[in-house]
């Protein structure tokens, strides 16, 4: 698992993917912090974080599209199958690499509330509560994107399908009110009101786990073609 993890992280940062991802995330975090906290003068960092999830619609497909689709295209999947590493470990190695690339810019975002607190009264538990929720939401969406990537050979198809799936999930509450509970995004907004809903965190973690499991199954199934 470590071998896969090292390779993946290295590849994200030798290419531009990791840097572009971080820049994009930080750009929007900066914009919203500017709008809500600096211009409008709210002391609530969670308001800025409340606008962040839509960023996932763009960055999750871009980050996850290559995870498994590129392996098939480059025929390196045969290498993964023939190495003495179980598919579960391969998937987890890749998933943790994705998380690493995601967590690094979020760590930078963690500094924002601290900086803001120098200039006013920031309620830090709510601010960090929203960042934690953001992390878990991202973790769930990245797992879903990885699973979609394992279904196809084409990175473009993976990115397109992933975007569509996230978009539907994003607007799920508006599309069908009784399905709102299944919208990962909808649950996130509770955190904006300063509510730290442990149930939602567990829900996100479960979604991430389920999609990692499905990815393993999807890769295993290919051997039975």
């Amino acid at each position, binding site marked *: 698992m470590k071998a896969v993890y090292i390779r993946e992280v290295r590849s994200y940062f030798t290419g531009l993917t990791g840097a572009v991802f971080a820049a994009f995330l930080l750009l929007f975090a900066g914009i919203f912090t500017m709008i809500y906290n600096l211009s409008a003068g709210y002391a609530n960092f969670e308001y800025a974080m409340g606008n962040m999830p839509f960023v996932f619609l763009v960055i999750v497909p871009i980050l996850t599209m290559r995870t498994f689709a590129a392996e098939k295209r480059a025929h390196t999947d045969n290498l993964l199958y023939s*190495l*003495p590493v179980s598919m579960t470990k391969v998937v987890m190695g890749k998933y943790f690499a994705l998380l690493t690339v995601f967590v690094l810019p979020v760590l930078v975002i963690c500094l924002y509330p601290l900086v803001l607190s120098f200039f006013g009264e920031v309620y830090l538990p709510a601010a960090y509560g929203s960042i934690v929720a953001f992390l878990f939401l991202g973790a769930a969406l990245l797992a879903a994107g990885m699973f979609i990537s394992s279904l196809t050979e084409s990175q473009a198809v993976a990115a397109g399908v992933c975007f569509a799936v996230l978009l539907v999930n994003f607007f799920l509450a508006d599309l069908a009110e009784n399905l709102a509970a299944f919208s990962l995004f909808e649950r996130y907004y509770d955190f904006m009101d300063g509510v730290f809903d442990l149930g939602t965190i567990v829900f996100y973690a479960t979604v991430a786990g389920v999609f990692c499991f499905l990815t393993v199954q999807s890769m295993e199934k290919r051997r039975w073609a």
Partner: protein
Amino acid sequence: MIEVSHLTKRYAAHTAVEDLSFTVPDVGVYGLLGPNGAGKTTTMNIMTGCLAATSGTVSIGGYDIFEDEYEAKRRLGYLPELPPLYLDSTPREYLDFVARAKGLAGEELRRDITRVLHETNTLDVADRLMRNLSKGYRQRIGIAQALLASPEAVILDEPTVGLDPRQIIEIRELIAELGERRAVILSSHILSEVQAVCGTVLIISRGRLVACDTPEALERLLTGGTAIEIRAEATVEQAGAILEQVPEIERAELKQQDNGTVRGQLTVKDDNAAREIFFAFAGAGVALTELHEARANLEEVFLELTAYDKPAAGKGGDAQ
């Protein structure tokens, strides 16, 4: 080392491999020979755990490739049909990944990477991006990867594809050397290659094993006895009369040549016949200017054994 028994792989429309069984001992080079689409790649993919068989089993060093996946794969080095490279990394980074995945670490890992780079003659490109490497180099990095951690069985799918003649010779030498210490299976549709490096040849046609023997034995198999070619300064009638005195000859085809000599192709029962033929001509006072044992080459064996295959249209017919 490797035991393949009753392997069958069926797809919805066709059967890629049917009831294939063979055993490979601990050392030696085995050649899997067959026309495109015969099932070579499918067989190798199943042997390395990349593909599940419809029925039948494969065991590597006594461990089943599906039941004891980890133990079996630890003993394997595999070069698939297309070298499985991450083009956005350098050979050294790539080999580092494979070596770690195979459980190497620290000093041992560094030593092994240098060893395989050296063996495949790729040290000079070790730190260049693989995206920028030629096909020959990529192929050799693919082979290097299979040799990491000194696996007991090395499986190479068409290892010399894309190499230039000098590199082909180098890789063949490397394969022959590997075969002295471990089991090597290579697939090829190039006959001269198999003839040059393989101690045993398995000929596969349409997913079935049609022959398994040494290249020499396969050549004999086709001729059905030994063939002898002669040339003598005589007419067809003269030569025919002389040959009739030699009981070992089963069949003789004689042909008059323009320069007053006769050429003959003889099928004989035992190896002693050449001697008898020589004395027969000498006794009759007829000059025998040529006398040699002829063997069908592997190419003819191949064509005969796989005769029912329609020639595949282009490359890429191998069932995936």
